[in-house]
């Protein structure tokens, strides 16, 4: 494959050919290295995030307290406590509300685009969803801060509008595009013969959707929802700006919370590099990495399941 000059008398081999014979193995090696780069980076991310907090995590952090205590007081003078339960509750509450909004809207839109639209109208809708996905998270956060905050205060007569409700709505809208696009792929992957068979038996399009397509595309649709969840768990700046800054387990949607991601973003700049607090933030990073890794792995296995079928 690389030996393109073999069999040719030496004098007749053009310079260009010699260069290419020399360069080809090099280029192919480079391509192979780049091909594996994603693996290096994923391992690299885990390695560097873990090792930056390892000394504290392995020696001074009590994992029981870290995972089950709601008390996050990393700057307390007398009694520093590193419990992330309240932060996890923050992430969970905002993510749940976001999914409550994003799943019906996302799957509904995926079905509408995939099964009820055609031609330029379908393309137009898909492009619009892409534009929705393109809005930067800091702009979403700003909308939460400047528009939704006063609106929530006015509507619910709440003391503050930066809370679970605000963050959940913002995150829900941010997660919709990924659910739509993966959900639409899942529906597209169902063979047309299924639809034709169902319609030939006299079923309406809608009956076909929920009696045939939903069961057939079940794992793909679930993967779409999971990727939406992953997106919502990992979102940082928007929730930092929209959920207020209260480390507490929320009792209702009008309570302010702080998520795992927002805690890192809010506190990393104020900590001494290498200190316990700094390392504790990297420990939260490890936690987030594990959460999203599990979610993405499950989604990927589900999607692979469809392809193999």
């Amino acid at each position, binding site marked *: 494959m690389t030996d*393109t000059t073999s069999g040719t008398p030496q004098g007749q081999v053009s310079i260009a050919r010699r260069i290419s014979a020399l360069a080809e193995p090099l280029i192919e090696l480079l391509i192979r290295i*780049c091909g594996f780069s994603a693996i290096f980076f994923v391992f690299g991310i885990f390695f560097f995030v873990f090792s930056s907090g390892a000394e504290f995590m392995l020696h001074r952090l009590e994992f029981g307290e870290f995972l089950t205590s709601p008390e996050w007081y990393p700057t307390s003078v007398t009694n520093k406590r590193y419990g992330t339960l309240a932060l996890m509750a923050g992430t969970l509450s905002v993510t749940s509300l976001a999914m409550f909004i994003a799943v019906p809207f996302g799957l509904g839109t995926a079905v509408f685009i995939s099964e009820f639209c055609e031609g330029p109208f379908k393309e137009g809708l898909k492009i619009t969803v892409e534009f929705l996905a393109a809005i930067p998270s800091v702009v979403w956060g700003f909308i939460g801060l400047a528009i939704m905050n006063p609106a929530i205060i006015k509507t619910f007569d709440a003391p503050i509008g930066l809370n679970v409700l605000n963050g959940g709505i913002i995150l829900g809208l941010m997660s919709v595009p990924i659910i739509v696009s993966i959900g639409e792929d899942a529906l597209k992957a169902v063979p047309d013969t299924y639809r034709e068979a169902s319609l030939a038996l006299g079923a309406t399009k809608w009956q076909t959707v929920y009696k045939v397509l939903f069961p057939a595309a079940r794992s793909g649709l679930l993967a779409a929802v999971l990727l939406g969840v992953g997106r919502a768990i*990992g979102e940082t700046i928007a929730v930092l700006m929209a959920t207020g800054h209260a480390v507490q387990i929320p009792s209702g949607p009008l309570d302010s919370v702080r998520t795992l991601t927002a805690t890192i973003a809010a506190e990393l700049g104020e900590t001494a590099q290498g200190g316990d607090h700094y390392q504790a933030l990297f420990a939260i990073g490890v936690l987030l990495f594990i959460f999203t890794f599990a979610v993405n*792995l499950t*989604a990927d296995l589900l999607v692979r399941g469809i392809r193999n079928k």
Partner: protein
Amino acid sequence: MSTAVEHHRFSATPVTEKSHRRQSAAKAFLGVSTALLLVPLAAIIGLLLTHGWSAITAEFLLDAPTAGMTAGGIYPAIIGTLWLIAVSLGVAAPIGIMAGIYLNEYAPDNWITRIINLAIVNLAGVPSIVHALFGVGAFVLFLGLGTNILSASLTLAVMTLPVIIASTKEALASVPLAFRHASWALGASRWQTIWNIVLPNSVSGILTGVILQVSRAAGETAPIMFTGAAFYLPFLPQSVQDQCMALSMHLFTVSTQVPNVPEAFPYATALVLLTLVITFNFLSISLRTYLRARRKW
């Protein structure tokens, strides 16, 4: 449904009529929920325009912030964002394109390739703030690059790599296998075939992914916060070893950290950022649509 009277022999039964009514209701419901999604998009653009348009002046776009960021403009942030885009693109594009070439042209169908694909999915799913921690741990501290444009751009590059890999793969996969067979049959090597046949036929498709990467990189805030973007800098960056301001970071700063900012300033900053991002998206989507329409095979 209403033809029951005219055609007795084929009249719809009550069951059929019911299922048809359900079908119409479902379609209407799905249509409305889709339409409701367009409301926030329109609302955001509309609100940013109405509140921010008045502040967009030549001075705002071409001056540095003054008076503790309560006056002046956003010029250094625009320039900083352009630096970050250019450097991260310079790193992510070659690696991402070559990774895409590997996966589509070289990779055997085995478990290692499956792991690579899984890694790409995970790389895309890692939270942006974890990418920031990685950037701090790997580039700023371990490699000792410090907080500057280079560290921030490398972090952005790793984060946006999956976008380029995915679209390169898709672009290469759309080149018919017969093209490669013809080239191989003429005695061309695998790389010669890729260079002379596959890449020229997929370059625009790859470009759509590259443009999309630019759009992602321009909008991110968390990955650059601790790796190189500054709250405020009185000068423009001269090299990749300087820190820089960035539009996304500036929007975060003026809307959360700085008191007494004129009301229109953050709206106008958001408008400029959104315009930049949407423009790149629009370019990418137009290019893709044009290519699909033009494709001959």
